[in-house]
């Protein structure tokens, strides 16, 4: 494979691995804030128990997010030196603000949130929990501003081949930013909700009857049930925004080759890039135009209007359907769950099993959604400004291939370890096994220090 393709695969592998963890921690941080606030207000131990378990899940997830994120900060330079050389004046400050306002905040207060409960007052511990949540969300804000600017760049002018800022307001509040930010934040909330519900359901199936676990399960299911309809509306609005600014991406999402009035909504098709047509398709007449233009006979531009300027169709087309499919499944499961658990009823076994199976459903939908967004932007790295092929670095294919194989093996190993350790933690909690950490506190291995 050539260096460009390898550099793309490597960056894609890394960023795919990375997003898995923030997608959980952004939402879970706020769920922990909620648990903590409930504990403070009611004084009920079930909230404390819920916090105690999920803060461990948070710690592990956060660590994986941090280490894969550090990798990202280097790969900008190693894989895409042309990116910073061309748009560094815009990307630089945005990334800088992410480090300054978010990374230090979350990393520093994380230590206090995880291990400081006995060392600081409850007020400070609550504050630390808040700061971690604020930090993760700030981080998401800046990076989504940058990504949105890459999709819909505004507020700059090109001088000597470099982008220079004209208006920071226009750079930050670029046309797709509000939609992408909301869509991703809700996605993170949904991902975390299903992780909470899935692990709690697993504990329940293992015989856990504690109030803390029931509470977690209920919070997870309800949060999902509330967020998913909002997400469907937000996703629709984001789609309309994309029609306006990146019609080639939408044409690929829809698998539409010709400009069409009253376009079908394809449920399934097999896009053939060679012949520039779909080999097979099932669709709902006129529904495509209805969704994209909110008019039965609205004009939708097809791929042939963007020949040579549109992404590969199949990955975008299928990733989009996977995202939608998982989203609909989330709707059905969370609403059925909320109904089955109405008025304080326990979750029936079928529900628990379904929730366990869907623990990481948020990952599938989030990653698929990002593939639509990122592959859909190709061949551009920054839409209309910088082509991906022009940003690639001088590193040889051999060096990338070696490091890529090492990364892939490592990521695969870590993913397996992560998922299995989460369920192991859940089964330990379910069987009432006293966590090692607690055992130690009751029976310190060493005498307490004379001076502190």
């Amino acid at each position, binding site marked *: 494979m050539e260096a460009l393709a390898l550099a793309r695969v490597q960056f894609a592998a890394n960023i795919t691995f990375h997003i898995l963890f923030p997608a959980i921690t952004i939402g879970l941080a706020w769920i922990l804030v909620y648990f903590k606030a409930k504990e403070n207000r009611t004084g009920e131990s079930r909230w404390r128990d819920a916090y*105690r378990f999920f803060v461990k899940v948070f710690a*592990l997830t956060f660590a994986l997010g*941090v*280490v894969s*994120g*550090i*990798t990202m*900060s*280097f790969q900008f*330079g*190693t894989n895409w030196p*042309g990116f*910073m*050389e061309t748009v*560094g004046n815009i*990307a*630089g*400050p945005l*990334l*800088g*603000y992410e*480090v*300054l*306002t978010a*990374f*230090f*905040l979350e990393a*520093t*207060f994380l*230590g*206090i949130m*995880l*291990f*400081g409960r*006995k060392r*600081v007052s409850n007020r400070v511990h609550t504050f630390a929990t808040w700061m971690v949540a604020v930090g993760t969300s700030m981080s998401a804000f800046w990076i989504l501003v940058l990504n949105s600017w890459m999709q819909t760049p505004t507020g700059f002018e090109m001088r000597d081949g470099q982008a220079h*800022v004209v208006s920071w307001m226009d750079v930050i509040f670029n046309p797709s930013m509000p939609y992408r930010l909301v869509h991703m934040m809700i996605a993170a909330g949904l991902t975390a909700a299903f992780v909470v519900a899935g692990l709690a359901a697993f504990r329940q199936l293992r015989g856990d009857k504690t109030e803390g676990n029931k509470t977690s399960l209920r919070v997870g299911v309800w949060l999902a049930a509330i967020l998913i309809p909002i997400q469907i509306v937000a996703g629709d609005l984001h789609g309309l925004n994309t029609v306006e600014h990146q019609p080639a991406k939408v044409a690929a999402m829809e698998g539409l080759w010709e400009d069409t009035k009253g376009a079908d909504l394809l449920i399934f098709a097999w896009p053939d890039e060679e012949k520039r047509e779909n080999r097979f398709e099932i669709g709902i007449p006129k529904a495509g135009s209805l969704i994209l233009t909110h008019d039965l006979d609205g004009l939708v531009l097809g791929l042939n209007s963007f020949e040579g300027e549109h992404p590969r169709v199949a990955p975008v087309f299928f990733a989009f359907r996977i995202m939608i499919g998982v989203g609909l499944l989330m709707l059905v499961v969370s609403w059925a769950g909320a109904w089955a658990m109405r008025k304080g009823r326990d979750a029936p076994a079928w529900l628990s099993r379904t929730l366990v199976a869907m623990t990481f459903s948020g990952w599938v939908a989030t990653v698929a959604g990002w593939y639509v967004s990122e592959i859909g932007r190709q061949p551009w790295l920054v839409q209309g400004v910088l082509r991906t092929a022009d940003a690639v*670095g*001088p*590193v040889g294919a051999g060096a990338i291939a*070696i*490091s890529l194989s090492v*990364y892939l093996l*490592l990521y695969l190993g*870590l993913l397996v*370890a992560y998922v299995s350790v989460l369920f*192991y*933690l859940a089964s330990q909690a379910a069987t009432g096994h006293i*966590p*090692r*950490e*607690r055992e*130690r*506190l009751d029976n*310190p*291995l*060493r005498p307490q*220090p004379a*001076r*502190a």
Partner: protein
Amino acid sequence: MEFWLPVVFAGLMALAMLIYVVLDGYDLGVGVLLNGADDNEKDMMIASIGPFWDANETWLVLGVGILLIAFPMAHGVILSSLYLEVAVMLVGLILRGVAFDFRVKAREPHKPLWNAAFFGGSLLAALAQGFMLGHYITGFENSVGAFAFSLLIGVCVVAGYGLLGATWLIMKSEHELQRKAVRWAQGALWLTAAGIAAVSIATPLVSERVFARWFEFPQFLLLSQIPAISIALILACHFRLRRLAREIDHTEWQPFALAVSIFLLAFAGLAYSLFPYLVIDEITIWDAASAPESLLVILWGVVITLPAILGYTVFAYRVFWGKTRELSYE
């Protein structure tokens, strides 16, 4: 502005890198020393750095971040030239970063595996960072000699981090572990000194400009104080450790302070050699800087946030002040 902004950002980058080297230096160092300890001691060693490592590593992101955002032209050149070492370092940092959590959360039988990942990852990261330093100051030369030199620097940086880690442990631990830490520090001190000597001799040889900067009169008189003070500090550290090896007393914090001072001077010497170049004798900070208007925007951010960052960092260190106790989520 055109002149001063890049200078200010070079200073900020140096500050971030220095803080990174000292802070992540001690926690990588603790990782490098892990295999010399028994199981309980391992828990204790990792507990002593558990609340801090995350924030410590963030200084690396800030340092590389400033290189990326303030000097994008140099960022591409440096990181493409250091591609494989960077990859090795990242694998190391990933392994040790996740091992912190996995080793106490995974099944008990898997714990030795994650301890090994923690040790191996720390070693790999420290070695790669030293190797990068060697590769960097030889001007990215790809000869056998340069490779051997880089490898030597790699080993010495491992020792230097080991020194920081061991002296950190002297401060944070008690009993047998503390005595072990004193012995580790004694061993690491001399390798560290050898490394500093190697870099000090090599840099002027690689570049005539660096040579001239150091050995021209009259600045030579002032500059010769740097190696002189370094030698004095190394000796002071040596005698302090020897005394602690006989009997632990209230001076147990001093070796760490001395080790940090040694790093500070070595760093200052290196910065003096390099300035104003980002790539030795090729790219200056002015060649590589971003547009002034973008730098100003970041500078405002730094001016506002850095005091806050330093403030809550100090707060976090105060919360976990004193001898380390077992880490607990309770």
